[in-house]
Every structure is written in structure tokens, then in C-alpha cells.
């Protein structure tokens, strides 16, 4: 029973590690895509293909569309975090007001600016849309490194278990099934928790992923 509990825990930790590693890769892609899209919009506005106002509107939309596009590639926890990010309530007015005050001082109003000054505000909105948070990026990189370390450790334990088993073939099947079941159960549990708790609830989804992973790994281990 103790060995089974340890196996279940290892499957759950490996599932979390796999999800963190995957989400870090998606985050890197997100960083690159929003930066490239903002640069492309700035070039289009400078060359006259788009007005600065259009470029700013596009830029505000692009953050959400990029999140949407990458959502299918993230884990349930990553998806819940992305949904929370989308629900942040930033809109055209708040962004224009923010950059009007930043560029022209406290109390300045966008509708009282000249056309040239308004263009400067729009340009700032476009540039800002291409920036990601350095602390969050660093957090994801740390999570990825930690996750990769745990995966290597878990594989090491599996290799050891197979090497010392009386029937290495059967042990290899068991190791693969329990760990694979844990990962699949974690994803399914997280997705189910997302349905129950609604969008943008990463803590609830994280708990769901953990419980789902543990139950799946435990269920699979009963077959061996």
C-alpha cells in the first residue's frame, strides 16, 4: 500500500512537472508572438498602412487573440491563468487615459490633445502591447527548470525500478501506465475542475488537476 501511495504521488508530481514544462514553452511562444505582432503593427502604422488609432485598437485585441490561440496548448492550470489575465478589465479608454497622463502629465485628457499628440498616445499603446512581465517570465523559466528536473528524477526512479524488477518488461509497462495515467488524469481533473469552478480559477483547477492525477494513477496501479 505504501509503495502504491508513493507511485501515485510520483505520478502526480510528474504530471505537474510535465504541465509546468509545457506551459513555460507556451509562455515563451506567447512572449515572442506579442512582441512580433506589436512590432509589425508599429511598422504598419509608420508606413501608413494603418492609422495609429487602428494600430492601437489592433494591439489591444492582439493580446487576447494571442492568448486564445495558445490556450489550446496550455495545461488546464495555464488556461485558467490565461482566462484570469483576459478578465483584467483593461479597455481602450483606460489605456488611452493612462498614456495621456504619462506623456502629458497628470490631469491631461486624451480628447483635448492635438492629432499629433494623440498619435503619440496610440503609439505608446501599441508598444506596451508587445511587452510581457519580466517577473512572470522568470517565474515560468524557474518552473520549467524545476519541472524538467523532476521529470528527469522520475524517469531515473522508473529506470531503477525496471532494472531491479524480476520481470523488467512488466515493470516497464506498469511504470509507463501509472505515470501516463497520472498525467492524463491530471489534465482531465484540471479540465473538469475548470468546468465546475468556471473560467479564471487557477487554484480550483490546480486542486482538480492534483486530485485527478492521483485518482487516475491510483486506479491504473490497481491493475498491476
Amino acid at each position, binding site marked *: 500500500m505504501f509503495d502504491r501511495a508513493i507511485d501515485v504521488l510520483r505520478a502526480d508530481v510528474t504530471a505537474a512537472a510535465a504541465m509546468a514544462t509545457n506551459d513555460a514553452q507556451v509562455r515563451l511562444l506567447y512572449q515572442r508572438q506579442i512582441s512580433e505582432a506589436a512590432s509589425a503593427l508599429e511598422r504598419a502604422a509608420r508606413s501608413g498602412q494603418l492609422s495609429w488609432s487602428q494600430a492601437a485598437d489592433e494591439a489591444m485585441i492582439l493580446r487576447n487573440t494571442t492568448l486564445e490561440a495558445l490556450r489550446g496548448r496550455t495545461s488546464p492550470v495555464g488556461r485558467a491563468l490565461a482566462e484570469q489575465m483576459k478578465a483584467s*478589465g483593461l479597455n481602450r479608454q483606460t489605456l488611452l487615459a493612462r498614456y495621456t497622463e504619462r506623456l502629458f502629465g497628470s490631469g491631461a485628457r486624451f480628447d483635448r490633445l492635438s492629432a499629433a499628440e494623440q498619435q503619440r498616445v496610440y503609439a505608446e499603446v501599441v508598444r506596451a502591447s508587445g511587452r510581457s*512581465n519580466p*517577473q*512572470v517570465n522568470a517565474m515560468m523559466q524557474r518552473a520549467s527548470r524545476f519541472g524538467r528536473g523532476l521529470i528527469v528524477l522520475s524517469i531515473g526512479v522508473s529506470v531503477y525500478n525496471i532494472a531491479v524488477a524480476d520481470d523488467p518488461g512488466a515493470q516497464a509497462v506498469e511504470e509507463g501506465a501509472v505515470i501516463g495515467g497520472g498525467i492524463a488524469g491530471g489534465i482531465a481533473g484540471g479540465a473538469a475542475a475548470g468546468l465546475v469552478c468556471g473560467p479564471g480559477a487557477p487554484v480550483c483547477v490546480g486542486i482538480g488537476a492534483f486530485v485527478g492525477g492521483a485518482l487516475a494513477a491510483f486506479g491504473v496501479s490497481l491493475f498491476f
Partner: protein
Amino acid sequence: MVTGPTWQVLEHREQSEEPAMRVRCAPSGPDLWVPGRHVLAVFEVGTEWLLFADHDSPFEESLEICLLSRAGLTDQVSLAFFGWASAGIVPERIAERVFGFTFPATRRWRLELGARPAPVRPRLGVHRHGRWLSRLWLSGAGQGAESP
């Protein structure tokens, strides 16, 4: 060069992950490199300065709070988490050594500048850059300060 009532940004440095600014806190104050892209406020506290800056990424903002002295950056805390967007952070001085601000829009914080460093409490979204002791005592508004 960007200038505020008590500070001047003299120079910007854009690095891949950690933008920084060279800031002069007062006409006769030192000029120091601090993290961030935009200074929100600088408050003079005795012979020190408390600087609030952000990274100018409104969709996913980072707030930097730095304690500065003539010797340099003596303490620092960063606030950032997934989905913490900001339409603008407005730090306020509540008392001589107590400050308040809202970030993200739904969360109100109280910051007390302690006389001496005290152990920090881990909090979601609060990054201490490896420090276990800090004079920047952070807590949710309405609750007691992080440290005595």
C-alpha cells in the same frame, strides 16, 4: 528626461528581461540605477527615499518598490503575477512611514517602512529577490503590518 516633483529620470537601459532607469531622487540626492521603465512616485523618508516604479506593460504589470539611500538600493520588493493588469498605480502616503496603493485593481496594499529589517512572509505575487529580511513590510489593507 522625465521629471517629477521630487525626482528625475536621467537615463533608461533596456535589457531583455530587466529594464532599468537611472534616477535622481532629489535635487541634491544621489543618482542610482533602479529597476523599471516608469517612475510612479518617490517619497522622502528621513535620509532615504521610497521609489515606486512600473515596467510599463499594462496588460501584465510589475510594480517595483525600492528603498534608496545615498549608498544605493538598500531594499526592494516586486509585485507581479499572471493577469495582474494595471490601468495605473497611484501610491499614496498615509502616514510618515506608511503608504498605500491598489494593484491589481481589486487588491489594496499597505506598505510600512520599518525601522529595522524583519522576516518577510511569503505572499502570492510578491517577489523579494532572495531577501528573507526586509524593511518593506507589506500587508493587505485593513490587516496589521507584516512585521511588528
